[in-house]
């Protein structure tokens, strides 16, 4: 899995390419958690992420909670149907702000 972080005008975009599972979620946590400070906004672009496992869902949830605790925002964008469906069925979906695309995130801020 690869994470490309791109600071933009009002938000930081982190593109995730590949699956988030028990093998790759420690890496995701390490790279993304430090961004949760100073009331910023991080948008995860999951267009090229086709599968998030139980471990992956938990890392995303921990990120969301940490961002909220720091007064920051975490948005998830570009989820494919299957990932969205799994997040819904396992109850994780309620903890996130979801957008169809990064542009939608930018438009809503």
């Amino acid at each position: 899995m690869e994470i490309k972080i791109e600071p933009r005008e009002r938000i930081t975009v982190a593109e995730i390419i590949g699956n988030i599972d028990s093998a790759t979620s420690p890496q995701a946590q390490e790279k993304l958690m430090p961004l949760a400070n100073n009331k910023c906004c991080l948008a995860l672009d999951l267009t090229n992420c086709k599968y998030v496992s139980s471990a992956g869902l938990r890392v995303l949830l921990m990120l969301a909670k940490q961002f909220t605790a720091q007064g920051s925002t975490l948005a998830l964008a570009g989820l494919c149907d299957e990932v969205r469906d799994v997040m819904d069925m396992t109850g994780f979906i309620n903890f996130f702000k979801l957008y169809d695309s990064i542009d939608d995130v930018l438009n809503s801020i």
Partner: protein
Amino acid sequence: MERVDLHPTHNSPCGKYKLRPGKPLPFGATIVPGGVNFSIYSHHATDCTLVLFEKNAPQPTAEIPFPDRWRIGNVFSMVVFDLNYEDIEYGFRMDGPWDPNNGHRFDKTKILMDPYAKVINGRDVWGVNPDWNNIYHHRARVCFDDFDWEDDHPLETPVEDLIIYEMHARGFTKNPSSKVKHPGTFAGIREKITYLKELGVNCIEIMPIHEFDEFENSRISPTTGKMLMNYWGYSNVGFFAPKAGLAATGKFGMQVDEFKTLVKELHRVGIEVILDVVFNHTAEGNERGPYISYRGIDNKTYYLLTPEGYYFNFSGCGNTLNCNNPIVRSMILDCLRYWATDYHVDGFRFDLATILGRDQNGAPMHNPPLLESLAFDPILGKCKLIAEAWDAGGLYQVGSFPAWGRWAEWNGKFRDDVRKFLKGDGSIGAMAQRLQGSPDLYGGEQRGATASVNFLTAHDGFTLMDMVSYNEKHNEANGENNNDGGNDNDSWNCGFEGETDDPHINRLRRKQIKNAITMLLVSQGTPMIVAGDEFGNTQWGNNNAYCQDNEISWIDWGLMKKNTDIFNYFKKIISFRMKHPVLRNRGHFRNCDYMGSGFADITWHGKKAWYVDWSDNHKLAFMLCGKHAKGGKVDDNSVYVAMNMHWQMHGFELPKLPDYISWHVFANTDASPPYDIWEPGKEKKLDNQNEFLVGPRSVVILVAK
């Protein structure tokens, strides 16, 4: 501050894994910092080896013996570091005596599943053919048991206020007519929550969701050519894991989160969850059955064995779990506590529960330690405990199940007596008992109406529509020459066996269904209905559809269209029961006017008010005084119910009310919809306050206001 006992201290013999001595508690596989703690007990094993697989791999990746010096008592435990939690499956090889006459069947060539496995792999998607050469079919996995419940908690709805709705997790939505996105799954049930709220039930009782093998005993039906499966699931592989094949996310191993989310969403709208649990036997069968878990771990401890070492069969399914053995008792307690704490489950219904009261030789006990432990356990203290108080060994304990004031029972006598009365063949003496919450059975100390779970239908037996459409069972599709399934159905086909176009017969059947649900819902005690009864679901006369994984047992939501009147009736009568606490007392009636209202809490009537001809078994009426609702603690309307199971119309003289109130009709099953039942609160005042003409085979409910 970091603990000093978290670091690896040894290497495995193959050198690949770092290890350290484990902690005996908790049993099973627990994630600890850096690794997994594995713990398993066996009274008679001489040694134990941990077997690790990569997910779905045919052969193990590693076999790590538990060092004997790390054993504490009879518990083998160790921590293995740096495992990929989502990728591994684990099992055990146990060595010990092979001495079947003395109950020992250790076989170290077999890989055994952890009895405490919280996630089980191997049947991840329902019905997908397994690799029959697999050396380890049901594989334990490591569980992420963390979950954000937010502020969810068990609802603790008083049991007398419950309307229990029994369903099969797959059959509830598998039929395409359900129109859900994930048919036949926990997620599918969740999609129907709005429907459940509309119907008005506040508790679902789900048939077994503990991991089971749908392929157990699978065979082709000689009559239909379809595959017969272990569909109902009353035969478990593991008690701590939800069945992956019942989850839409089972293929990803996310069934734990999916089921917890279902419970959370149900609780959010006030619906409780009761699990049907099957501790009376396991899927391992008798000595000819497979080695899945217990047989190879500690056969003599887990199973009731004859003096020659064969398996007692009080369950009718090959073996019987040794429930009152102290070790097994602990396991059952651990299991129920786990479902209560980790899944926020509100209660349990125990299949063939009398087995739980048998001692290690199979004899019934006066004070079974297991049942007592469950009744007094602090964690289970507010859980509903419901017993199916009979077993296949002839022990029938309805009314005498050891209760300690905590256990409720499936009241089989309610079903039998009310069905007989319904078809005109019954006794109003017996009806009088059933309507009152069966004081003849539960009138003793500490029990009360709350001990009685009243039902007319359950998964065992006909659906409600079939109960009024068939005199005989028709289980030919089960391939057992129609020998299986109960014969004492007390059903009546209303004049024709099976489906018919005859409008008179169909009208009578619909009326009988309304009569049945009325009698059930005006009775004291806790009512239970079966999913689909509210829209006339049929199994075409099959009263034992345990193996039918098809349209026979998948409820047909399409029937809602032609049976809207039945659904409408169910909705309104459920709402009526919930609006009238006089129907939902905890204790039994005292048969006197202790509130000084001028009326006793319950009074009996017939064609004449205040007088019952107890020899006329077709007619009975009763009145509940509203001032005595909930033992006089709550003020309610008085309710009068008249039941005429005779084939002719009869006038029932109404009890005279004080001047400031009058009788209003709420329900009259003889009237054509929409006049058969009114919106609760909008009942129609009767012109004639002295007499009501109750139609043939009809039930009437009046409200005084």
